[in-house]
């Protein structure tokens, strides 16, 4: 329950009977989240211009930006929560997750939907990936990734996979290509294995 509802608003503030709130206004910083943020930041500078760098640290480590960590980061960097939130919500590579929401899947596959990739079937590639990759993988469209000469392109995490389609004109098609052959190159699917990602993350 938000803090202001603890008090009976019918009592006039000037009456002298109103009790002051027992904690500061706004979202309270969770001590655990603050400790996590402090550990992650280490002795890095808390300068304002490093905000995006620090958000990257959180996003890379937790796979998303939890609201509790944003509040803790604001406290740690001596910024207003809104200053952190407006930056975090501006950039496409940050995923804000409210505290009662489930975090996004660990693996994000970004399918380039810019012109050179769309010409060689990125729309079909996206649909194919969505059906072939199950839970634990999120498939989203994304703007140009600078692999237009090897279109279509996908990024798994942020790692670029060029020539992701088996049907693109300038790649060597598999010998027995038929209508039922999947569009996406098998190597791309292999790189999206959640078990492999989980073990890679555990050893990091």
């Amino acid at each position, binding site marked *: 329950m938000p803090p202001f509802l603890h008090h009976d608003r019918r009592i006039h503030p000037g009456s002298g009977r109103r009790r002051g709130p027992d904690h500061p206004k706004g979202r309270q910083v969770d001590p655990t989240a603050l400790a996590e943020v402090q550990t992650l930041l280490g002795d890095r500078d808390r300068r304002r*211009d490093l905000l995006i760098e620090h958000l990257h640290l959180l996003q890379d480590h937790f796979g998303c930006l939890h609201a509790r960590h944003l509040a803790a980061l604001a406290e740690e960097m001596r910024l207003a929560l809104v200053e952190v939130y407006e930056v975090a919500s*501006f*950039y496409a*590579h940050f995923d804000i997750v409210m505290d009662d929401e489930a975090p996004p899947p660990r693996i994000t596959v970004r399918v380039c939907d810019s*012109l050179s990739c769309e010409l060689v079937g990125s729309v079909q590639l996206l649909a194919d990936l969505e059906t072939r990759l199950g839970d634990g993988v999120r498939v989203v469209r994304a703007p140009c990734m600078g692999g*237009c000469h090897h279109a279509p392109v996908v990024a798994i995490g942020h*790692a670029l996979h060029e020539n992701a389609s088996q049907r693109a004109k300038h790649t060597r098609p598999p010998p027995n290509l038929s209508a039922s052959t999947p569009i996406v190159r098998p190597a791309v699917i292999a790189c999206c294995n959640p078990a492999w990602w989980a073990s890679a993350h555990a050893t990091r």
Partner: protein
Amino acid sequence: MIEPLEYSGLRGLGGAGFPAGRKWRLVRQEPLPRLVAVNADEGEPGTFKDRYFLETDPHRFLEGMLIAAWVVEAAEIYIYLRDEYPQCRMILEGEITAVEAAGLARHARIHLRRGAGAYICGEESAMLESIEGKRGLPRQRPPFPAQVGLFGRPTLCNNVETLYWVRDIVEQGPEWFTLAGRNGRQGRRTFSVSGRVKDPGVKLAPAGITARQLIDEYCGGMAEGHTFKGYLPGGASGGVLPAAMADIPLDFGTLEPEGCLIGSAAVVVLSDKDNMRAVALNLLRFFEDESCGQCTPCRAGTEKAVKLMTAPHWDEALLQELTRVMSDASICGLGQAAMNPVKQVLKHFRDDLVAEPS
């Protein structure tokens, strides 16, 4: 140092084409402390030349950058690298450490900053905002970044490729750069060619080469089963031209009379298999996604344009009016250039407007 650069005619190769030597001179006239900000946020659809240079020869770029910092007496250099290129970040982190260890960067500290997936941060002033840790909202000009830039200080902003050519111009003399060029133009240009050609990729070619020469001589011609129909001379913002106009020299200033821009020299080649209406819609969807939302003409205009363009019949009068509003009233280049593809499709590809793309 500035003189050979001015004489070489090297221009800003991020897309704006401002003469590099003049920019260095302008920044030098401002009071100390001055800063350098390098734009490695290559986001223009179809462009991959900076990636190519960073992956294949990062030292040539770093050398140009250090020379630039030395010339404008900047003690701090900020490199703003897009988050889509983690491989370039690894390369640069290693090479910057090596350069510092070798004692080549005693005059300036190098900071490598990571973008976070925003096309607009390739716009010079939005990039500065982002380096300051804020949202990438472009600034009103004037004042220009050369006067009031990063952290309010005079800042030299250069693209990766602009700095990449500095070493060669110094070593081989400015004539080496000017003497290249075709069809009456001077200089060298790096084209990122993609789309319906046999051999797409980064093509180092003389400035002023025509699209037809570029396709035939550098890209092995059109892809199998495709007939040349049109091309984007400069990525998403540069407009679209028909094959009939493929004999215009590609350079700064040569395409403007046709309502197009060379920009970052990202040439996307289109064929008879491509519907131009669908092409324009793809580009406008991109601008809708990437508009930063700061100014109304662009935020509301790109959304409105996509709505109008998904309708079975384009409301041409309304689209033309929208084009005028957006190009006149938007703060930055994104909104000003966003309607270029629409304008050009209405002008040159009227046949494609009739049929709903499949």
